[in-house]
């Protein structure tokens, strides 16, 4: 086997362009995909015409809320293009300088202060459907966030005013009487008055006032919680299975490395075995391996010779060559990215195991493809056509497509090595589940399956 390995390495060394493309292309693709996954989508450019005076405030229950705070909330989720007027905002959208515009009217504070009338913010989109879909969700989210912030402030003011009513004392609002009794104190005060009051018909009225004060006190006492529930009926709490959240950057590393590994492995293995056919050397190498060396005269099998290489050994050699080269590229890539993204170097052994098993499974797939193709170009094309969709299918998140389709995707992803490789690497790098051992066993099974298919493909050598 070592002479075949030496031969293939010599051929590779003399095909510098091929090797360059084979190494650089997957790395470039992997990095692009990694960047696409790890980077948050770019903030859309949105023209903002804030027509409210800079000092506009909303006064609620003696508390002043600054409208500028609402404005600044909007800015966190978009790339603002400040404009002075509504017309300028429209022009910015028309000219393409901004994908949309938000117009905050001059009367925003007055409307909010009135409490009885809703305030309005105008959003202007252009007519391009693609751009609309890109920017709409961002703006809606930004507006919802800003509204929520404002509503929280209003709730806090309302809760404080109600608290003052229940507790009494000085409300701190100009013009209100000092040392007011709170609703909580009124029943006791009224009962004291009743005790010293001559029995008469108005005692019943005083009792009613005391009962009302008690009832109001009890119910307004929970007003704070009720207001919180109204302003945010559903609160989200995060729970992560498998021990913790995988940082997006770390997951992107896993995706990038696994894609790189897949391309190098599948292309090298497919090209390596197809080259033997293209150069007509396959028959020369394996001739005699069907009943090789047998001289028994068994009908149809007897042949006076032995193979230079058995088909099984040839498959194993191509597997090792492709897996070895790809393993090196992938480990260097992983280590290189590790300089920018935090990775646990203490788990390097697990990375290597995951990379090695994944490389073998990918190489087996490549050998199976190469065994079917008659020439290197056909094998490479087939490898590309098969690998790319497999990688993308494995990255389709659950719930993003219809149930039946997702089941079909799961089956396809299960019988090809990409998903298993991704899970193994993710488990090795990020400690996710299914555990590393299960993924490695899956990859081993796929290696055997594709190696068997390759052996079947090499049945005919002519």
């Amino acid at each position, binding site marked *: 086997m070592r002479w075949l390995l030496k031969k293939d390495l010599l051929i590779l060394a003399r095909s510098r362009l091929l090797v360059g493309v084979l190494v650089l292309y997957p790395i470039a693709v992997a990095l692009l995909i990694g960047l696409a996954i790890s980077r948050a989508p770019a903030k859309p450019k949105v023209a903002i015409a804030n027509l409210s005076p800079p000092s506009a405030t909303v006064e609620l229950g003696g508390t002043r809320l600054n409208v500028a705070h609402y404005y600044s909330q909007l800015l966190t989720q978009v790339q603002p293009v400040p404009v002075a007027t509504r017309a300028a905002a429209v022009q910015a959208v028309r000219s393409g300088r901004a994908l949309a515009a938000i117009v905050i009217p001059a009367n925003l504070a007055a409307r909010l202060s009135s409490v009885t009338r809703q305030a309005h913010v105008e959003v202007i989109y252009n007519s391009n459907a693609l751009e609309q879909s890109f920017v709409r969700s961002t703006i809606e989210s930004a507006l919802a966030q800003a509204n929520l912030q404002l509503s929280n402030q209003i709730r806090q003011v309302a809760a404080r005013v109600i608290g003052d009513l229940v507790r009494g004392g000085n409300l701190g609002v100009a013009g209100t009487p000092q040392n007011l009794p709170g609703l909580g104190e009124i029943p006791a005060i009224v009962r004291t008055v009743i005790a010293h009051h001559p029995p008469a018909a108005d005692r019943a009225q005083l009792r009613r006032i005391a009962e009302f004060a008690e009832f109001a006190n009890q119910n307004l006492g929970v007003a704070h919680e009720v207001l919180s529930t109204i302003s945010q009926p559903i609160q989200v709490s995060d729970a992560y299975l498998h021990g913790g959240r995988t940082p997006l950057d770390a997951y992107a590393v896993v995706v990038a490395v696994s894609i790189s590994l897949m391309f190098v492995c599948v292309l090298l293995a497919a090209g390596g075995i197809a080259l033997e056919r293209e150069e*007509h050397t396959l028959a*020369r190498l394996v001739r005699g391996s069907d009943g090789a060396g047998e001289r028994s005269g068994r009908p*149809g*099998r007897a042949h006076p*010779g032995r193979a230079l290489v058995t088909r099984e050994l040839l498959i194993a050699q191509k597997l090792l060559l492709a897996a070895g080269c790809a393993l090196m590229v992938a480990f260097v890539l992983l280590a290189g990215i590790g300089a920018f993204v935090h990775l646990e170097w203490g788990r390097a052994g697990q990375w290597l195991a995951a990379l090695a098993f994944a490389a073998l499974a990918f190489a087996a797939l490549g050998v199976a493809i190469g065994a079917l193709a008659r020439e290197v170009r056909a094998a490479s094309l087939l490898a590309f056509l098969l690998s790319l969709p497999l990688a993308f299918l494995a990255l389709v998140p659950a719930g993003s497509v219809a149930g039946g389709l997702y089941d079909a995707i799961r089956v396809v992803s299960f019988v090809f090595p990409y998903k298993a490789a991704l899970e193994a690497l993710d488990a090795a790098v990020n400690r996710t589940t299914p555990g590393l051992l299960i993924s490695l066993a899956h990859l081993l099974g796929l290696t055997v399956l594709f190696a068997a298919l390759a052996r079947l493909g090499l049945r005919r050598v*002519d």
Partner: protein
Amino acid sequence: MNAGEASTSESQPLLSMRGVAKRYGEREALRGVSFDAHAGEMVAVIGPNGAGKTTLLSIVAGVQPATSGEVRMADGAAAGRGVGWGVGWVPQHPALYSRLSVAENLELFARLERNPDPSAAVATMLEQTGLRERAGERVEHLSGGNRQRVNIAIGLLSDPAVLILDEPSSSLDPRQRERLWHFIGALSQRGRCVLFSTHNVAEAERYAQRVLVLADGEPLFIGSPVELARAAGSEEELGFEGAFVEFLRKRGH
């Protein structure tokens, strides 16, 4: 002489085929081929396209198994006089690594054949095939004729008793063909049994002691070219090629 019978030679055959047949699914590519070939003999396999010539040679070479029948080598021949291979095979298309040099190709196959002295075997082959000056040149830069020489050199690396050549002269110009047959003739004179296929029946008449005629997988004749012309009943007028065509026509092909 009818095909399917043993050869006329009295000596023990080096190569012996009995009832060799090959099927690809429903299609019968070869049926009941039997013949013997002897040391120092050159046997040409001729026939129209699709006759089964390449199939027959690839079975003898061990590239594919026969569906039925057997291929046998004489005792001692299977082990080769050198290192193991009894049958040297020269496929129709040069089976070489084009990115390797002539010497690297020869050395690789010598090592794969477990030749005890690969360097000596390479040197001998380079000398015999006249490729010593081209030893360091990559195969991809060689002419068709020189590639075929390397192809043959690899087939001879193990010093086989039987050499199988599948249309060895098909890609060569007349001058190269002449050189090639001179080289192969010398091998035969040194005691090797040479079995070759060709579309050029004039080559078969000129260089082969016997010809095996195949048509649609069926062996129609085995004997000397003169005997074939006689069997066609037109020895003088048509020449060997005409006699061959006439023979096929009479047999319904």
